[in-house]
């Protein structure tokens, strides 16, 4: 339908040599900034137990709602202050990165596998297979994503893995759309015909010839989808139908702080900013890869 046709696909005909690619990567400011930020956040997530100054779950009701250090009443023991249960906010934000990154990566893998398989099959075989896959995509696009995710999580019960599974099983549509279009372009090229003529099996042609050549598009969609999965988890958790307390999901932290936000704006500003920075970083990496892998650089 309209959506399926509207998504542009990169031109694959030009190849770039290693040195040229390296020069392009280093010349691309957005990609460098994005990669830097993302690396930083991944490091924070990996080493959270070492850098976090406090236990993110330890409550101390005598030290509730201490403002961050840059406020007059703040103190150095709690750089980002404490929440309504007296938990150290900096530690919770640091640990929260683990949840967002896990969601982004896991949803990306699940939806990526489903969508890529569908898209490759549709683009490679065409005909009836293409018709069926296109129909499945159309049906999926007609279902309101947030609504269905909320309803399913509400009935199954919210937990990190339920959220990952629900989003992973729902969010494959863009993978399928882009992979289908990209495969259609590669399918007609000479080296695919050559591999087929040489007697390679269908699976071998798809995995060995087609897949490597649609990889740039796959990586770009993967980053877009990871970013959107992170935002969706935050939204579900914000609405109380995602990751459950006491886990320090950034969306959940904003929900818990909502009652106090008019007096203590920093309670929602800190996790909100963390979310925005992570999603910005992932998007920058995706945009950067798209620009760098496209012939002629930025279009």
């Amino acid at each position, binding site marked *: 339908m309209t959506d399926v046709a509207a998504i542009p696909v990169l031109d694959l005909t030009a190849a770039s040599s290693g040195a040229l690619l390296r020069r392009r990567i280093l010349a691309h400011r957005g990609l460098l900034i994005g990669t830097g930020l993302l690396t930083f956040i991944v490091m924070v997530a990996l080493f959270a137990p070492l850098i976090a100054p406090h236990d993110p779950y330890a409550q101390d009701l005598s030290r509730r709602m201490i403002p961050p250090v840059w406020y007059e009443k703040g103190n150095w023991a709690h750089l980002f202050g404490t929440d309504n249960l007296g938990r150290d906010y900096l530690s919770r934000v640091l640990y929260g990165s683990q949840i967002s990154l896990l969601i982004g990566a896991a949803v990306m893998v699940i939806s990526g596998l489903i969508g890529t398989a569908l898209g490759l099959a549709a683009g490679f075989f065409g005909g009836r297979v293409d018709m069926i896959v296109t129909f499945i995509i159309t049906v999926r696009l007609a279902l309101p994503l947030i609504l269905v995710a909320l*309803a399913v999580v509400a009935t199954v019960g919210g937990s990190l893995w339920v959220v990952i599974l629900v989003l992973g099983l729902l969010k494959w549509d863009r993978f399928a759309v882009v992979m289908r279009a990209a495969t259609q372009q590669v399918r007609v090229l000479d080296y695919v015909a050559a591999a087929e003529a040489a007697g390679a099996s269908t699976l071998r042609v798809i995995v060995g010839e087609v897949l490597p050549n649609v990889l740039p598009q796959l990586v770009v969609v993967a980053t877009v989808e990871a970013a959107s999965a992170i935002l969706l988890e935050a939204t579900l958790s914000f609405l109380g139908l995602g990751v459950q307390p006491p886990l320090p999901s950034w969306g959940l932290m904003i929900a818990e702080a909502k009652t106090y936000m008019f007096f203590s704006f920093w309670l929602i500003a800190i996790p909100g900013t963390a979310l925005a920075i992570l999603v910005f970083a992932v998007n920058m990496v995706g945009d950067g890869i798209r620009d760098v892998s496209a012939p002629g650089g930025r279009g």
Partner: protein
Amino acid sequence: MLIYALKRLGLAVLVAVVVSALAFLLLRASGDVAIALAGEGARSEDIENIRRIYGLDRPLVVQYLDWAAKMARGDFGTSLFFKTDVHALVLDKLPTTALLALFSLIFALAVSLPLGILAALYPNSWIDRLCLALAVIGQALPSFFFALILMIVFAVMLRWLPVSGSNSWAHFVLPTVVLGYYIAPAIMRLVRAGMIEVLASDYVRTARAKGLSSSSVVLKHALRNALVPVVALAAVQLGFLLGGSVVIETVFALDGLGYLAYQSITHKDLPVTQAIVTLLSLIYVGLTLAADLANAWLDPRIRVGSGT
């Protein structure tokens, strides 16, 4: 055109049937309705009774056909939480959400058309960069967080607008801005790309060569052609707005379909949730059908096309 329209209509009907079946199955499969109906702490005999009374012991296919036939007649069942007729409940809330979606679309177009045109006329200027920045920020900022910030600034600090509720037109302003902001970048990009392409085309050069004024060339000749894909996108975005309203209506407690959906989900009010999911899906199917037909009418290449 007629053959294309009929084919497209047939596809839409098929999609509608499958989508409604999926909406029915998904929500039915993910929880036991009888237990939800009986409430917490019900005895197992009661649950069995409810299963019989509501016909939940019949095969799923029969249940679906029964449900679909009733939906088609306008009988959406009774809400478990609100204890009222679902049909009346949904129709009561639909205008609020439709208005919100319409306002948001108008707001998005009002922002993205001029910005997109200017960005196309002056590529790489500050206005082009502004458009890019708006898009990048919109991509990274969660919509509910943006909504909370606007609420704090305009409702609490400046006191210009109400915090939440849906009693007056003023209650629509912030939700409209938030929802509209999230669809504006896509339209902006499309307008910009379309304008750049059209401005470089022969007929625009001809129009310029005829000595027509610059504004007449841009607005009358170029814009009309650049707008063709925007019409299709706008229709699809309207469907997206209906879905996105769940989050925004809940944040602002705007009493529309989205807020009703959220309430029905948290209260495990299955008939209402099912009705809304199905209704939104069908609206989306209808909108994309309309967009495709409009496109085919505007652009003959689509309807003759390659036959796919």
